[in-house]
């Protein structure tokens, strides 16, 4: 797959504070890229720089392989929903879409009705947007972002504040955008569980720094449970572990990391004890994506 967006050590400083610090992300065509980070991590600022709503202090980025100045034609191929949906509250859903369509030089009203239908807002008629639920507004925001038929969609916290039904609707919409319209999507969120359901590549950002970037498979492999084992004699312990049929392990510093049958800590401890090897410390690590995230970002209890 080709790269649709790449940032090169992009940085944004507000005074002495670095909101985004030398971040380099790579988004491949057709994928859903999940940007994970807690509130204030720098996700929105990064997306704003890509959307041309904020100017990078240093660094650059390439959209569709074009570094430096991005042409208006390329810009029009990037759809944006950053923070709240940007809508005129007194206008209807159709009128809001129409306003964006006029700005984009699109005259086809049927296309706009199709877009409304795609996001499930076809029947709302002339109801002003101010009377919409938050979920409806988010879907309208996505529809507005899609007016130009973008190839890359930037969605910043699209499920923030939504009820479970609203979250499910937006999640389904993202799936359909990817599978039916073949749009590459960057979606930011601090809700790890939701992001893990839609994204197939992740960037973990913390205090403005990109801590890790990995595909879903890579990330899951890093999240496979491991048994941390510290014994009185690690060399003898390796022999015992092999004897009980465990081969996927390694010595890391003063301890062993066992990846195979990592949940069988009790049996391993018993086998070691029978050979007179004392277990000094034993714990299971990397049980979930969340644990991996906490490990990277310093062990916060709430993302």
């Amino acid at each position: 797959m080709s790269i649709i967006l790449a940032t090169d050590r992009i940085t944004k400083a507000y005074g002495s504070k670095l909101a985004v610090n030398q971040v380099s992300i790579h988004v491949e065509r057709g994928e859903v890229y999940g940007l994970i980070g807690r509130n204030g991590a720098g996700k929105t600022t990064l997306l704003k720089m890509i959307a041309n709503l904020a100017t990078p202090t240093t660094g650059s980025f390439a959209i569709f392989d074009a570094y430096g100045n991005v042409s208006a034609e390329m810009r029009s191929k990037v759809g944006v929903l950053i923070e709240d949906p940007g809508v005129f509250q007194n206008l209807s859903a159709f009128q809001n879409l129409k306003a964006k369509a006029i700005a984009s030089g699109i005259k086809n009203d049927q296309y706009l009705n199709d877009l409304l239908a795609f996001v499930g807002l076809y029947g709302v008629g002339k109801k002003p947007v101010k009377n919409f639920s938050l979920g409806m507004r988010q879907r309208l925001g996505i529809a507005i972002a899609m007016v130009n038929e973008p190839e890359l969609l930037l969605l910043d916290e699209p499920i923030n504040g939504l009820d479970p039904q609203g979250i499910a609707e937006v999640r389904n919409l993202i799936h359909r955008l990817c599978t039916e319209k073949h749009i590459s999507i960057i979606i930011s969120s601090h809700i790890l569980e939701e992001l893990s359901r839609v994204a197939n590549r992740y960037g973990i950002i913390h205090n403005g720094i990109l801590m890790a970037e990995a595909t879903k498979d890579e990330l899951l492999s890093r999240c496979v449970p491991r048994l941390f084992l510290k014994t009185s004699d690690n060399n003898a312990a390796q022999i015992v572990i092999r004897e009980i049929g465990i081969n996927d392990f390694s010595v890391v510093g003063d301890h062993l990391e066992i990846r195979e049958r990592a949940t069988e800590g009790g049996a391993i401890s018993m086998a070691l004890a029978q050979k007179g090897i004392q277990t000094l410390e034993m714990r299971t690590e990397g049980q979930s994506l969340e644990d991996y995230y906490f490990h990277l970002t310093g062990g916060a209890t709430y993302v």
Partner: protein
Amino acid sequence: MFNIFKMHMYRVTRATSTYVLLGVLAASIFMSLGILFIVYDNPLTSAISLSMSGESMDLFSLTPPTVHQFFIQTSNTYLILVSIFSVIFANCDFTRGFAKNTYSMFESRRPLVFAKWLSLVTCVSICYIVYSFICLGLSAVCIKAFVSTKWTEYIVGFFVVYLCLISLVTMVFWITTLFKSPSGGMVIGILISSGTFVLVELLISGAVARTFHTDFLLANYFLDYAFMSYSAGMGTVATVRTIFVALAYMALALTMTVFLADRKDVHV
């Protein structure tokens, strides 16, 4: 750029605030007509005018330039409404966040600023032309003291005042962009249009004249004073000076707005 212009025209014609402001403006016409009637058509002024010689009759005649000056240049209501409209117009897509959709479409923000300014100027121009002719027509029909003379002065005044008005609107546009807040822009816009700054400007002018022992009136070079005090009957020098002041302020405000838009991040 033309598409952005059309987009602004589309949304402004569908905004409730546009029609509320037009309604208030329409109501203000009738209030102003009432004042004109009291000043020019009541029995007392008629009696005074009859007792005067022909040379002084002008004082009690309502000419087209006077109507224009009364309804536009010295009418606080008109200027305040235009200022409020300009602030709402300049801020609307930012306060509602719609600017994110358009600003993300362009690499340079200059076309966006020019298109928005152009659409604001178009709206104010249409309003100015229609309002001027309605006021003139109603004055001609309703006020007995109206005399159809001084049309050359009226036409010259119409265009000079128009330039000043657009320049004022551009200043409000810049201030609104600077503050990024409707309330801040609104307060300063109203202070400008209500003539509050004129008093300060006259005080500064007086101080300068006394200090340097000169007849030079600095206030002539302040846009709001130039706008409110201008009359085509003041002569060519005053007309050229007012045009120059209007164009200079307009160019300055527009340049500053473009500069701000280029430099500032979009916070919506």
